[in-house]
């Protein structure tokens, strides 16, 4: 290591004062040793050379590892400008923002933060205050940390190919206006958000302008607004996540080629709550998901050319609500069970197709034994149309008179849309 670089690294140390003299000694000692650059370990703790993380970060060279001992750390925000740092907490060291500030800001590539806990950034209405913020950095890894009562927990802006994995985030469950998001991605393409658990934030996971990203295996529940809020992010995948009891469910908007596989959209209840709201989504795939206990399971508005297959809709108020501007989507292999209404729409002409789904309301038969019913099934009930026009009529749900209406419509179909499943399945697929 050249003398100039050393001076540059040490620069802040000299201004740092007493404790840093010791660190200089350590640093020089290590530099002189034959140890490889990446092997350097700095220890942060009450009885070590670095009482604060900031001090250790300032002393660290690229590739160093900083081990933070258990304890509570207060004081100024730590800013990381050294690339390839690995920060590891031992025994959950606690970083306390004292309601005043962000805790770690990363402005360098390849930084790893693991095993730390963060509390109490406080609420700011002027800035999006985050416990950990990553700015214009590539390949960061934020893994297995704990966040409590942070406005925003993890905030990635203009970063690239980061991994956010295994974090446990619990927000203060304040109302939407004074609450932030759990994992927030803004212009951060190719990010992986995996196996995190988010509760009590505004949006559990937020993607905006972050194409090619992945969300997998996360649990996002009890957030005030959306479990997942997803906008302008083409070619993203999200798989095997569980979204439960979020204020407004999950919203996926203004994106192309989004793939959604094997997620659970559960218990989003309320007049404006949707298991999954799709708005202006084209060419997406929606397969093997479970929609259960939502006021509206799947809401499609301006969603076109989607393949919606093998999903399970159970116990929803409305399983699927198709707005008239949803075009050319194909529903097949889905299961509709014990929903208030299977399909509702605001139009008589629908340009989406249903084929080979299983409907618990199907009353047909299969004489040729090919596994699909011989008479088409019309999933839009007359009573659903009545409710669409007069929502108060919902109070008559499951009344004998609603059955009479539906039966009459089945015999003389004049009012309901021509929408029909020509080959309804006789047995529910598993």
């Amino acid at each position, binding site marked *: 290591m050249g003398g100039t670089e050393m001076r540059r690294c040490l620069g802040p140390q000299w201004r740092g004062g007493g404790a840093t003299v010791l660190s200089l000694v350590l640093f020089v000692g290590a530099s002189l040793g034959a140890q490889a650059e990446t092997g350097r370990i700095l220890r942060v703790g009450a009885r070590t050379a670095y009482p604060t993380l900031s001090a250790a970060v300032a002393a660290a060279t690229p590739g160093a590892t900083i081990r933070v001992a258990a304890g509570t750390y207060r004081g100024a925000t730590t800013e990381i400008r050294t690339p390839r740092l690995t920060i590891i907490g031992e025994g959950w060291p606690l970083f306390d923002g004292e309601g005043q500030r962000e805790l770690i800001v990363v402005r360098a590539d390849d930084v790893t933060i693991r095993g730390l806990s963060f509390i109490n950034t406080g609420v700011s209405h002027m800035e999006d205050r985050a416990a950990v913020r990553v700015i214009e950095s590539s390949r960061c890894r934020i893994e297995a940390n704990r966040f409590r009562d942070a406005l925003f927990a993890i905030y990635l802006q203009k970063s690239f190919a980061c991994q956010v994995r295994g974090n446990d985030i619990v927000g203060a469950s304040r109302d939407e206006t004074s609450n932030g998001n759990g994992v927030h991605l803004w212009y951060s393409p190719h990010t992986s958000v995996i196996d995190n658990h988010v509760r009590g934030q505004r949006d559990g996971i937020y993607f905006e302008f972050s194409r090619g990203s992945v969300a997998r295996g996360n649990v996002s529940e009890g957030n005030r607004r959306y479990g997942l809020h997803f906008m302008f992010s083409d070619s993203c995948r999200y798989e095997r996540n569980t979204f439960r009891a979020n204020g407004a469910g999950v919203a996926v908007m203004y994106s192309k080629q989004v793939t959604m596989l094997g997620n659970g959209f559960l218990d989003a*209840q309320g007049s404006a709550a949707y298991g999954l709201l799709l708005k202006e989504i084209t060419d997406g795939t929606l397969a093997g998901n479970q929609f259960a206990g939502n006021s509206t399971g799947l809401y499609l508005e301006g969603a076109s050319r989607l393949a919606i297959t093998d999903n399970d809709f159970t116990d929803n*108020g409305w399983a699927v609500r198709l707005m008239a501007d949803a075009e050319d989507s194909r529903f097949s292999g889905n299961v509709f069970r014990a929903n*208030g209404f299977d399909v509702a729409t605001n139009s008589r002409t629908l340009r989406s197709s249903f084929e080979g789904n299983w409907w618990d309301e199907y009353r047909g038969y299969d004489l040729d034994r090919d596994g699909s019913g011989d008479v088409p099934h019309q999933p839009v009930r007359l009573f659903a149309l009545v409710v669409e026009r007069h929502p108060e009529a919902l109070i008559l749900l499951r009344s004998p008179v609603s059955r009479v209406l539906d039966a009459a419509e089945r015999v003389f179909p004049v009012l309901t849309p021509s929408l029909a499943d020509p080959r309804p399945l006789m047995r529910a697929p598993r």
Partner: protein
Amino acid sequence: MSALSLVLRAGLRDLARNRWLLAYAVALGLITESLFFFGGTGDQVVLSLLNATLLLVPLVALVFGLMHVYASREFIELLLAQPLPRRAVFSGLYLGLALPLAAAFLAGLGVPLAIHATRGGAPWVALGFLALAGVALTAAFAGIAMAIALRTDDRLRGMAIALGAWFGLAVGYDAAVLAMVSAFGDWPLERPLLVLMLGNPVDVARVLVLTALDASALLGYTGALFRKVFGSALGPTIAVAALMLWTVVPFVIARRRFLRRDF
């Protein structure tokens, strides 16, 4: 031994051997069993049972109650010839009708459920509400049946009134409500609708089960009042209270007729 329990015991002993009552319990049991047998999950079974309960229970209570009172005419006259208080005689007669009917309903529902309960995941709250609703409907329509039977001695006429009452409350009432909704759709109808629902025991029973079964749908409606009522324990509480009232009112009306009537 009080007059009430005397009359009640005589009534129970009489109905315990009644084949129609047994058939009613067996039919309900077969319906429930077949719902499970054909692979229904918990919620679906409750939904189908709700349909059966809303239509069948009032019909059976009305027709059976009417036939029972007409058939017991001589027994009633015999009782009234004894030095027994009329109120106690009436209460004994009413309970002697309502209790076996309710027991038959609970047995028909309960036995298959008990057999299949081991499969777990049953929607117990909804089932509990359904049982409560069925018992309350039985009590209400047994009272209505007695009121009708005490009003006219003409069996044919009595049966016509009973069937009219059944159709009116099970289907006609809701049809009128629906017509009202579509005619006055531009007005705020939430509050009148909720009040109207309380005016018909069949609707109260249905709404009670809905609060446990279709909360997701009820909460999907934009009206603030609905959300307040169905988003809390308020809805079930009101519904249960209204059902209680609906078991008492027909009883009181029928008793008044009984007390004033000259046999």
